[in-house]
């Protein structure tokens, strides 16, 4: 589950990480009030950032032509005007696709005087099954680019999960960033706080980019998380009620939200051949087979190991809401699951949804004969297939017809 920047910063602040002062808001009046407070506190400039789960916000363009989802403002009136322009408006960035994303929330915060920028992330190292901290002296840029052009700038540290991050390790990372003097201590404290956030919040990833040395009004320096991205391990949400409430359904595809209500795992793709499969591995392999025979999958859909008639019907309804779909492939290997139950589900769903699209069904496994009979005598038009390859070939040619 992805979090917004303001939510990420709330969690970080709770774990002792220095973040620029600021507040989220959903109206232009609130935006003005937050800005006024920041100006009264002595800040010369505020930054306003749209809160969407997508990168490239600064360079995005709103559908009405208004440019940029990140703005620096010197007056509360300016903040008010820009909030008015952005809230409720839809922005297109390099990551949103053409449809863009509607803006519901803004973060209004103090604009820090940045001295230098770094990169910091905590994630799982899958090879060792240990937490991995990554820092880079090149901040504010895409880390994958740094990995390619200047890999020596990235320093990695695996943490023993039973001991946790040690103070000397955090200090060494701070030094690796080129920090000196007192900043080594504040840098180490921040790195320790970020690691603690990752661990205690069950995050999949915490990324601070940029992590900055900033200048205070009195000329002294401190280190702060100027931007932050956090994603949370969905399996852990049962023990983080507060974080679970941060889920923003506006940021998730409508059909995927609908599917999750029925415990279906659905991901919309761009093709026109829909598929309905039991098991994640088999579902991926089915998509691959469709592609192999020249088709383009419209979705990933795993109905799980013990799908019911209701789930199959819901799955059909979700598939049919995608207007690109030209043909449907049902691929079931009923291991323990009774093929006849699935067949009954398919028939009920086809009837209930008044299905007119070509439907190819491949059933294999437990009680398959009864399942095939159910399909044959159902009166619905469908094409049967012997194996996955056969099914994929048939559905691709139907979609192209």
């Amino acid at each position, binding site marked *: 589950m992805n979090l917004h920047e303001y939510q990420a910063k709330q969690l970080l602040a709770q774990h002792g990480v220095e973040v620029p002062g600021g507040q989220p808001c959903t109206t232009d009046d609130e935006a003005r009030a937050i800005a006024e407070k920041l100006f009264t506190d002595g800040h010369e400039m505020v930054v306003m950032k749209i809160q969407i789960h997508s990168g490239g916000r600064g360079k995005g363009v709103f559908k009405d032509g208004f440019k940029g989802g990140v703005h620096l403002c010197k007056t509360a009136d300016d903040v008010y005007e820009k909030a008015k322009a952005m809230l409720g408006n839809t922005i297109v960035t390099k990551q949103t696709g053409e449809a863009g994303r509607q803006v519901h929330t803004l973060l209004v915060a103090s604009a820090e005087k940045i001295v230098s920028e770094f990169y910091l992330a905590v994630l799982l190292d*899958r090879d060792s099954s240990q937490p991995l901290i990554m820092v880079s002296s090149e901040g504010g840029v895409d880390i*994958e680019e740094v990995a390619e052009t200047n890999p020596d700038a990235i320093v990695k540290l695996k943490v023993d999960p039973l001991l946790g991050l040690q103070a000397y390790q955090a200090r060494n990372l701070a030094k690796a960033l080129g920090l000196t003097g007192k900043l080594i201590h504040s840098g180490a404290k921040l790195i320790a706080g970020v690691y603690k956030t990752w661990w205690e919040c069950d995050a999949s990833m915490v990324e601070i980019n940029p992590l900055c040395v900033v200048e205070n009004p009195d000329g002294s320096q401190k280190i702060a998380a100027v931007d932050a991205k956090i994603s949370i391990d969905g399996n852990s949400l049962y023990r983080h009620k507060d974080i679970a409430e941060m889920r923003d359904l506006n940021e998730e595809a409508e059909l995927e939200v609908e599917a999750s209500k029925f415990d279906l795992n659905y991901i919309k793709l761009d093709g026109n051949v829909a598929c309905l499969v039991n098991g994640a591995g*088999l579902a*991926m392999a089915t998509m*691959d087979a469709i*592609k192999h025979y020249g088709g383009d999958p419209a979705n*990933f859909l795993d109905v799980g190991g013990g799908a019911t008639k209701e789930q199959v019907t819901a799955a059909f309804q979700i598939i049919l809401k995608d207007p690109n779909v030209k043909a449907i492939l049902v691929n079931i290997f009923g291991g*323990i699951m009774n093929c006849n139950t699935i067949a009954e589900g398919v028939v009920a769903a086809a009837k209930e949804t008044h299905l007119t699209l070509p439907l190819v069904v491949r059933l294999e496994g437990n009680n398959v004969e009864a399942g095939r009979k159910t399909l044959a005598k159902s009166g619905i038009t469908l094409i049967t297939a012997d194996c*996955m390859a056969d099914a994929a070939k048939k559905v691709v040619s139907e979609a192209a017809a």
Partner: protein
Amino acid sequence: MAILVKPDTKVLVQGITGSFGGRHTQLSLEYGSQIVAGVTPGKAGQTFEDQVPIFDSVQEAVQESGATASAIFVPPPFAADAILEAVDAGLELVVAITEGIPVRDMIEVKAALNGSETRLVGPNCPGIVTPGTGENSHGGCRIGISPGYIHKAGDIGVVSRSGTLTYEAVWQLTCNGLGQSTCVGIGGDSVPGSTHLDIIKLFNDDPDTRGIIMIGEIGGSAEEEAAAWIKENCKKPVAGFIAGTTAPPGRRMGHAGAIISGGKGTAEAKIEAMEDAGISVAETPSQMAEALLKIL
């Protein structure tokens, strides 16, 4: 014969009184597996299906029944504790079926397992089957949720991250007259107890395994690691398949571990590494047995 479990392996089930655990324990008993004990704290003295005694702790169950392997069906919030209890009781093999265990719990479990004699398979896996020689492979050892009847006793080892895709491969083998020594589902999570490589090493050392099918999917680099080892060390023919060629980067495809991130874990890279290691990679999921037959 076989790896990890034999038809006479004594198995206990943690979470035997839950509906999921109970149903699959019943199926394992019907398959002829030696399910000798169940564990549900607070339910000692009860019996599962008038046949399997239930204990409060794994240690008691092991002492009374002589079980050497455990199947874990405990719900996610309690699963890590169940695994550690099984490890502490000295079991040789722990198979965690549970789906949805938080990654942090598994990081801790994996660290605690360091240096332990216990082998963990899973979590989020279909389990292990060593087929028996009876009708529809009856009499084998079935730990987990795989359909027993699709198997056939023989000499092909199967290792996979996915459930139904494993059944697909096993069924293709059986239909082609190729039986299996052992089929191991290592699970789709990003912190697995055992990797492809761990299992392939066991197959390589098993005199009764003649050929191997390795099924992988996008995410991580376990398949590449296995391929590199196979290239240098494996004495047996290996066929394989990688699911997820068409998966979009950054999206998690059902399994927690099936995600391409930062340009890593693509199907292309895995297939390339496997072909480089001399592994016969099936072009479509329908040709997994065929790919192996070509090189046997």
